[in-house]
């Protein structure tokens, strides 16, 4: 509490000195973020979604073990899995990226503001007071954290299951060179981070949609639909002029990480696209949320 309150303290006629010292601005933000992370990661539904995501690499690994794919069959990297188990991590990410991962992120993002508004807890938070920009910031941090955990989970479970079921050792890159397992693992890790970054765009879209409604599942569904529409548009060659502006366009550019030397250009553009989407939809969410009447 600042010293400018002194006159009012006098008027109130009693001592209102806070019993606890105020925390620093950053420390306070960190504390609220931790609280948000607990809220996101302790929610059973969100944990169940992660469990479903983790099951995908297991199923995929078992399927490939039972019946090895012919060369060129199935999603990218599937054929390589039988030579090096680590590729199961990459195949899993490729399989999960179009639908499962964005769906999970859309559910968490849709819940962000709409969930708090729908259950009425938003008004409690705002009168604490948690300023509205801070609510958005912390909510977005929760969404991104969930996206990172989801992507890493798919990659880690894929790598573990793959290395258990299939040969390990040196890995052959797409460009033909052979690299040690540790090098391949590092590349797989960066791929997972790239995937998480791609999901940040979904999260920003979801955060904005979430400020428009008080129905969290509606916001989640709308976000998932937007993602799918973007992917469908991306698959129509006649409108290729639009493709570079779609946030899903360079989602699978991470294959370039498996070449030597690594070609960063596509991924850089992919990351910049996400930055642009986060900036635009973050601003929209801010504009909407900081001016809206909270009547729930």
């Amino acid at each position, binding site marked *: 509490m600042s010293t400018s309150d002194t006159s*009012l303290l006098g*008027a*109130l006629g009693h001592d209102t000195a806070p019993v*606890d010292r105020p925390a620093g601005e950053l420390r306070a933000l960190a504390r*609220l973020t931790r*609280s948000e992370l607990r809220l996101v990661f302790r929610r059973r539904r969100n944990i169940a979604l992660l469990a479903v995501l983790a099951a995908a690499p297991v199923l995929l690994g078992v399927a490939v073990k039972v019946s090895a794919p012919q060369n060129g069959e199935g999603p990218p990297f599937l054929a390589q899995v039988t030579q090096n188990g680590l590729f199961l991590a990459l195949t899993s990410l490729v399989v999960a990226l179009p639908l499962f991962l964005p769906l999970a992120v859309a559910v968490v993002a849709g819940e962000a503001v709409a969930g708090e508004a729908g259950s009425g*807890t938003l008004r409690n*938070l705002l009168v604490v007071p948690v300023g509205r920009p801070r609510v958005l910031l912390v909510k977005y941090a929760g969404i991104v954290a969930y996206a990172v955990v989801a992507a890493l989970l798919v990659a880690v479970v894929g790598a573990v299951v793959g290395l258990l079921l299939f040969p390990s050792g040196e890995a052959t890159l797409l460009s033909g060179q052979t690299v040690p397992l540790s090098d391949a693992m590092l590349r797989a890790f960066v791929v997972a981070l790239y995937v998480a970054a791609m999901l940040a765009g979904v999260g920003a879209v979801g955060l904005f949609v979430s400020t428009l409604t008080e129905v969290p599942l509606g916001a989640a569904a709308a976000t998932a639909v937007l993602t799918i529409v973007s992917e469908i548009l991306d698959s129509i060659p006649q409108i290729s002029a639009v493709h570079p502006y779609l946030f899903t366009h360079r989602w699978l550019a991470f294959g370039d990480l498996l070449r030597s030397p690594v070609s960063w250009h596509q991924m850089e553009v992919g990351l910049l696209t996400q930055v642009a989407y986060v900036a635009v939809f973050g601003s929209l969410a801010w504009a909407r949320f900081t001016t809206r009447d909270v*009547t729930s």
Partner: protein
Amino acid sequence: MTAAVGRTTVPAPWHDDDTALAVTTTGLSKRFPGGQLAVDALDLAVPVGSVFGFLGPNGSGKTTTIRMLLGLVGPTDGHTTLLGAPMPSEAARVLPRVGALVEGPAFHPYLSGRDNLLRLDAGDRTVSARGAARRVANALDRVGLGAAASKRYRAYSLGMRQRLGLAAALLRPRDLLVLDEPTNGLDPQGTREVRTLVREVCAEGATVFLSSHLLSEVEQVCTHVGVMSHGRLVFQDSLKALRLASENRVRVDTPQTRDAVAVLRAQGTGEPAVLSGDVVADLAGVPPERLTEALVGAGVAVRQLVVERPGLEDLFVQLTGEGFDVDE
């Protein structure tokens, strides 16, 4: 009814003197996008240290007003101050000193009562994390939820939920409590506890702004009242003044109602009426003993003569023009 009561907004009698005010609004209005004028040019003035009963039927604009006071809803017109600071521009500085329960309790159903309060405590950047457990435990104990702290909110009864809402408002010492229908869903024992709580908080020096659609709920704790009807403030004064605004009536139990009416009229009371067999009239300053004498002198058989003061509830209904009906 006195001149102070009408269908226009009434400035508080203490508006222009030096009384320190915990809450003020000037011309506060809210028109919702649908075109409905929910709050119409409200001039509230809540003295520091008072327990201000904010009364009105359901739908008369109380909750919208409270939401505007706290910055949840933006007014279409007018200004608000809380604890001397303009809202919502000073919200970050003022709201930590304001405990609020708005439109019933709302918490995360899958978190325990304790975790729900810890979540709100985590949002308060004017306190440190170190005291969180103690603040939450104190608040829960204060509303009698200490034993149910670890239970999920989902499993709470309506009364326990209401208590948790009060605990959130009491997480730290406050200078102003804004409680919207705090006794909703509470049994008589719980209602009494809320009253005790309000008195305690007030004794500690805080101002309490208490909304209710039932005058009887707040009558025993309020020092001041404001009465809302159709989005307007139709009365605002001390409870004492509200009582004075009501005139004493005389009720005569007699078989000769027509004679009694004539006698009362001759004595200069308010226009007498016959209500369920009794003759009733405003005293209008006529000493009741003179009425007794006149009635007996005129040969009217009087079984009973009572001077009554209409209950505040009657007054409330007079002011708002209705009882439990919902305003639209």
